[in-house]
Each structure stands twice: as C-alpha cells, then as structure tokens.
C-alpha cells in the first residue's frame, strides 16, 4: 500500500496538551495539504470555497492531519477495526407499512417551495443536446 502525499512530521508532538498551553504555536515542517488536494476534497464534499477560505482551510486542515498522523505509532497489526460499539448485526423488522412510520406526500414535500405536481424540483443534470 502506497501512502500518497503524507509527509513525516519533523516536529513530534509530545504530551497531548503541550501545544495548548502556549498562546503562540508555531507549526514547523508539518504535513501540508496542497491547494489541489483541498480543492479535490471540497469537490468530493460538494462545497464551494473562496480563495481566502481555500488558503485558511488548507492551513487548518494541515494542522489537524499533522496531529492525527500520530496514530502511526500504534501497533495495530493484530487489531480488528470497530465501527460501532453495540455488537448488533442485521437488526430487521417486518416489511410492513405502518402509517405512523411514514410521511404523507404532502408532509414529505413540505420542506421546500420548489415543487411541481407532487415532485421535488432539482437542478438539471442533463443539458439539451446542441446541434
């Protein structure tokens, strides 16, 4: 497995809170996200960013990613991943419609004024073919 774009942090964070004690924290040589990566991630998340936001978020996200890289230290070769703590699997109910568990069409449409004959109006995905 190749890890793309993850730089080894030069400054190792020691105790968890050593940075919050000081008011002026300097981050040196940390894992830095590129403009491209931030734009890519924003696109994946369907978020629009101004240039100011791009540069501000780039630094802030880089700080967090740099911090969480600390997990590399932990030996997890024998660990199973946990996605939730209940241990429940395949919880089902009978496939029956009950009025209390459904919204009426009117209720479902009530959250917006952009409706048309009982449908939600959505942005066009397909343009008309231009001759």
């Amino acid at each position, binding site marked *: 497995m190749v890890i793309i*774009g993850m730089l080894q942090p030069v400054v190792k964070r020691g105790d968890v809170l050593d940075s919050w004690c000081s008011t002026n924290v300097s981050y040196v040589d940390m894992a830095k996200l590129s403009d491209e990566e931030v734009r890519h991630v924003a696109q994946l998340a369907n978020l629009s960013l101004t240039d100011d936001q791009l540069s501000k978020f780039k630094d802030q*996200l880089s700080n967090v990613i740099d911090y969480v890289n600390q997990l590399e230290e932990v030996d*997890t070769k024998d660990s199973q991943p946990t996605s939730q703590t209940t241990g429940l699997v395949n919880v089902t109910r009978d496939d029956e419609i009950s009025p209390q568990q459904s919204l009426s069409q009117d209720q479902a449409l009530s959250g917006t004024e952009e409706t048309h004959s009982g449908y939600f109006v959505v942005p066009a995905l397909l343009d008309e073919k231009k001759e």
Partner: protein
Amino acid sequence: MNMELPKSIKQLQKGLLNKEFSAVDLVDLSYKRIGNCNKELNAFLTLSEDLAYQQAKRADKIIANEKKEAFISNPLLGVTVALKDLYLTKGIRTTAGSRVLQNYVPEYSSTVVNRIQDAGAVVLGKTNCDAWAHGASGENSDFGPSKNPWNKEFVPGGSSSGSAVAVAAGLSMSAMGTDTGGSIRQPANFCGVVGFKPTYGIVPRYGVVAMASSLDTMGHFTSTVEDSRKIFEITKGTDGYDSTLKDNPKENSKTSKGKYRIGVPKEYFIEGIDTQVENNVRNALKEFEKMGHDVVEISLPHTKYAISVYYIIQPAEVSSNLARYDGIRYGNSRDSFGDEAKRRVMLGSYVLSAGYYDAYYLKAMKVRSKIIEDFEKVFEEVDAVIAPVSPTPAFKLGEKANDPLQMYLADVLTVSANIAGIPGLALPWGFTQQGLPLGFQLMGPRFSEDTLFDLGEQFHKHVDYEPGTPLI
C-alpha cells in the same frame, strides 16, 4: 403568583399536589425569567409558548382529577424541559444551530421528545447550540453564542450550550442535549449542572439531527442526579425506529452495591491541567474514600490517541451525515454552512478518500478497538472511573476561536467515553476562585447508568450539595 422555582422534580410534585402553585404558574414564571435574560444569555432560539401552555393546562387537569396517581402514570408531569435544537419537534422550527435549517419546520418529532411529552413534560422551547453540534464552546452557532450565566464574558461550553445555560440560569428544570465527544458533560461542567451521557445504544437517536452516528448519544441536563435518573427512565429503551438500540441486558438484576471500587486513570491528570480543576477532583476522591468506597489508580494507556481517533472517525461520519443537506428537499444550500461545518466535512472526506482510507479511517477504527480494550480491562478491576471533564474551567469568549486544533485538543478527557460507547455523568461541585463552576465526571461500563446515578446521589448527599442559580 409569587412562586419560587422548584429545585427538583420531587419539590415540583409536592408543590403541585399541595396546590402551592400550578403547572401553568410554573410556565408563567419560566417565560418571565426567559424574557428577562434570554437576550443576554442567548440560550433559546425558539420558544414554544402555545405548546407549553397547552401541556401545562393538561397537566393541571390531570393533577386535579388523579391527585397523587397523576405522577405514576405521568412521571414527568409539569416538568419544564428545553430541547437542544437538534431534536426534531413536529410543527416547531428546528435549526441545528445552522443557517442551513434556519426555517426548517419538521413533520415529525424525535422519539425522545415524544416520550418525555407522553410522560407529561412541558416543552418551553429549542435551545441554542454549536451548529450541527460541532463545537465545545457554543461559539460555532450561526445564531451567536450563548453566555455562561455565572459570568457572561465566559463560554458556557458546547455543543449543548443553550441547554446547559437554560438549567443553570433557572430558566428550565431540565434540558435535553447530545453528547458525541463531550457535548453534554463539558457544558454541564462549565455551567455547574448535572450532565448525563447514556451508554451508546440505549436512548433512541431517531429524529435527532445526526452528527456522528457511531458516537452520538442522547442525554440531558438537570439540577440533581435524582432528576437525571428520572428522565433517563423515560427516554431509554428500544423504539422500533433506531436499529442500534439494546434494552439493558442487566435490567432485571439491578442491585445497588452500595460500596464501589472507583478507578483514577493516571493518564487523565495531564500536564497542563488547571490546578483548581485537578485539586477539585482529588478532593472529590478523598470524599469518596470517606464514604467507604475504594479508590485505586488505574491506567488507560491509549488515552493520548483518543483525540486522533475521534478527529478522524467523527468528521468522517459527519461528512456522510451532512451530505443530505442539499437544499433540495429542505433547508438552504450548502453555501450556508459555516466554517466549522465545512472544515469537518472536508476533513472527513479527506480521511475517507481513495489513498487515505487505510492510513486514517481504517487505522483509527483499529485504535478505537484498543481504547475499548483499555476500558474493558479496567472495568474488570473497578466499577467506575472518575476523571476531570475539561483541562480548564470555562474560558473567555473568543479565547480559542482562532485555532480549531486548540479547541479539539481540549476534548481529550471526554472523547474516550464516546469512542468506547460507555456512559458518563458530570457532577458539579465547587467553584474556582474566579467564581466559575468546577466538577468531575464518573464513567462506567456499558449499561452501568444505575451505578453512576447511585455514586452521584451518594456524593451530593455526602457533601450537602445544594444546586444554585447565579444572580442574574
């Protein structure tokens, strides 16, 4: 009507039965107090007066007809409650603290809301919170922060800020909140009220705006531990909607042990913790020993990785849960998201994206298993764990707003309970020299709420704890 705010549900019931006041009187008093100070404290975003008076009148009728029996069939009859604005309330605006939902009116209510209303509670309104529950100070609300009633220049904590303020300022007898990384326990600690986080999987999440679906828990704020227990009795249990619920496997074998073994995790007394916070917890330990409990030092070795685990898993789940806000079926467009929401969604998308999933999300899920194992080992030796809630007492508004990472690091003492899915109870006790609340938290194995309530009630009785409201 010159009534005083009842200090507990017990006191409320006594007053109602003895006709010292009515449920409607309490609602009058509550809205008067809210009217006097909500502009400054910004605890409530929406007031539900029509509903509250309707519920209060119904309560008064039931009491007149059934007298003492009224409280058996309606255990929360007349109890005023404020709801964090993540709880969907049918017909009443629900914003999640965000401009995206600033005009959203749900067509159904969450299970928790239905249950407490069926038990007779009176809903006063919806409280302010960090938008989407993203925050630990209240400063990420798109509607302005709430203020700490003990000193209005200070934050009340978050993300359930308005709910903590509502109880601390004597505006509501109780308030619902959510705790995903400490968002009940920390504001409870900053505001000097009892804050309860249940086991993950015992209180339904149905109808509550989702933040991180494997970490979110539905809890509440009260002035006393006894009240906290009473509300939990109503909110808990499977509901046929939320498929991540289990009824307490030890439901029928509830025997109070009386005396317990309490573990003190050495990793929680971190370098840089505020001296007053630490001394307060160490003094609490002495009191527990005086009460006859065993206090032993224990170790939770993976504590220092908890923030990294949390700030990978939580944003990943957030990015998924916030994908539904497309502005098509409800709400405003994604441009209305505030900075913190955008940050977390992007962080989550990054750690889940191709090329990074294994190194971050999968890795974090494996370290999560290690943190869970830490607690399982510890709970073979002790019945509960005591710890500070926050490395500092409440801080000043604006103090941490410019550095998100700084804000995240302060969650270190609360996130492990969410990672492991275990319950926690924040208990208020004492004040700093500057007059800000102090306290600590108890955590226990999954489904050990009874142990935590028992210990909490014993502690407050032993130290003669009196809930108080700051002069506003």
